[in-house]
């Protein structure tokens, strides 16, 4: 009993946060424990998910070895190579970024540097509304309305580029509206809000004194953006773009509905393909054995890819914000 009081004695005044009172109140300590537990809980759940999906996917890794990156996915012959889906995920993400990033950065500059604050607010609301649309609604709109409409445009482009070396193999004759490109466009709509709002935050950290300085030297608005805003927020915008890519890579149901569901690797962007999350959603219901393990394994790979992309993105955003405040 005496040892306990001896230990408790020196431990409590050592707490640097509350030097005036002898011990911290019980409520304070309980609060600390609860918040710490909440933080750890998320981490534990994440680790458990990673562990159990990897465990479930083990038969696939065992059966295929490096064959998991093979090109053939055919459940009828028990071949489960995931390359076509990795390719589809990458290509749709790239298409989405190419379309969404210029638009998002332009909107972010518009909101921070061009229009006055009272006009920026309603524009922000409208853009954030895009993020509120559920992905299944994007998917249904995509496959029922957008794909049949854009299929005609694909057909025009396809016939226009026939015979032209590189363009022909990219935009060759389409089969239907459901394709890599349609999925990429839908993804572009979906990631625009996140890329816009993050870019806006990064650009907002540019010190007013830099901008005033540029103007004082006689810079026009464009020159000010080039000289003061851009160098300052470059890293942060790259981070925002990568977070958008993370979102695009993980998008499931909208892509599953519009991508066409065909495990093919082709340079034809108007051809149907498939992506990692989409194939999991589509094929899980009736899968069994190694087939099921392979879909689990796709989930593990996707998890790993998105974590990598997100970590890089957070680092880029963090560094940029630190530079901004320094």
């Amino acid at each position, binding site marked *: 009993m005496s040892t306990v009081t001896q230990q408790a004695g020196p431990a409590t005044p050592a707490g640097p946060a509350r030097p005036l009172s002898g011990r911290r109140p019980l409520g304070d300590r309980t609060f600390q424990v609860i918040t710490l537990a909440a933080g750890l809980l998320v981490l534990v759940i994440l680790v458990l998910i990673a562990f159990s999906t990897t465990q479930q996917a083990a038969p696939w890794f065992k059966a295929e070895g490096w064959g998991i990156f093979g090109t053939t996915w*055919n459940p*009828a012959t028990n071949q489960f190579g995931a390359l076509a889906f990795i390719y589809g995920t990458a290509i749709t993400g790239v298409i989405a970024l190419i379309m969404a990033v210029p638009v998002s950065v332009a909107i972010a500059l518009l909101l921070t540097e061009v229009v006055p604050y009272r006009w920026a607010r309603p524009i922000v609301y409208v853009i954030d509304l895009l993020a509120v649309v559920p992905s299944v609604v994007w998917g249904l709109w995509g496959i029922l309305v957008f794909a*049949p409409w854009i299929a005609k445009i694909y057909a025009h482009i396809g016939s226009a580029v026939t015979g032209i070396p590189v363009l022909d193999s990219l935009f060759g004759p389409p089969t239907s509206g459901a394709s890599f490109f349609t999925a990429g466009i839908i993804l572009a709509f979906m990631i625009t809000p996140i890329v816009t709002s993050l870019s806006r935050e990064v650009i907002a950290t540019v010190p007013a004194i830099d901008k005033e300085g540029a103007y004082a030297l006689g810079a026009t608005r464009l020159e000010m953006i080039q000289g003061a805003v851009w160098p300052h927020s470059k890293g942060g915008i790259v981070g925002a773009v990568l977070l958008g890519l993370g979102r695009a890579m993980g998008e499931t149901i909208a892509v599953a509905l519009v991508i066409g569901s*065909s495990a093919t690797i082709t340079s034809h962007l108007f*051809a149907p393909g498939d992506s990692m999350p989409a194939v999991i959603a*589509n094929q899980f219901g*009736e*899968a069994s*054995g190694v087939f*099921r393990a392979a879909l689990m394994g796709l989930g593990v790979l996707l998890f790993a890819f998105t974590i990598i992309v997100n970590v890089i993105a957070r680092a880029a955003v963090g560094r940029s914000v630190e530079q901004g405040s320094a």
Partner: protein
Amino acid sequence: MQRVRTHSAVMAGAALTAMALSLAACSSSSSSSGGGSSSSSLSGTLNASGSTFQLTFQQTAIQSFKSVQPNMTINYGGGGSGKGRTDLASGVVQFAGSDSPIPSDETANFKGKTVLYFPVVIGPITMSYNLSGVTGLKLTAPVIADIFQAKIAKWNDPAITALNPGVKLPSTPIVIARRSDSSGTTANFSQFLVDSSPNWKLGTSSTISWPAASRGGNGNGGVAQIVKTTPGAIGYVDYSDAKASGLSYASVKNKAGNYVAPSISSATSAADNATVAPNLTFSSVWTPGAQSYPVTYQSWDLVYQKQSSTNTTKMLKAYIGYLLGAGQQLLPQLNYAPLPASLDQKATAQLSKIGS
């Protein structure tokens, strides 16, 4: 949902208490209370998941079963046969709907416990097409195989016109409509092609490596939608969805050499001619019989023979008994086919094995 759960938990608790009381009251004559399971009022919850092919039937049957056992709650969530079997193996559900027997690579999941198969529903898979002005199209299995492998590209291909004398077929390109999700419909359709056509090279599975130019739709409804909106399209669509979408469908040459249109009676005939194993597994695909539609499939409810709770045993007997009895009469109006009488009798006789 939360409220229903709590409610059912209370009900289950009450049922247990009641059972304990009745057992205590008449411990000597406990057999009499177990015997009258069909007439007595049961209460509790049965959870099930699996085959989406059964989903419409289950939903309708659950509704009408309320008039038989008003205090029983049955939840049938779809999710696919694979999910149903996984859920049954992990003990999440009391029965699972499955369009195929347990595959060999899954048997280990069931840890040697005996699973009983109760066939509950039969259904034809139509070859639905979109050709304006063409009705009564006739197809043979090898021609269907070539169409779905993109070896036949146009509707006026000699292979098709030879089967349809007097029908004016256009030169429209054929658009293959198939499932984008994995499905028992795909598994049974491809099984039909494996059984019937040596020229079919794509094998059989719930997902198939289709020709790249094919178009994928989600669910039977998605494929029906593609066929309905695309001139020249052909797709394999469950009979009830083909009917619901008002599609035209082909007659298919069966094993006996007759062209048979998909219908409730031709599907039941196909199942009637199937070879039924002692555990009631069978395949209605490509069966003999003059009136059998060759692309017919079936779905089972899977139940563990050993049950830990007497109440669950009674509820399973009551509900599956209902599906095999009065429930069968619900099937034709939903455009599914009832079980042939002989099979229904075998399945009903097997009910007594549950919980033994």
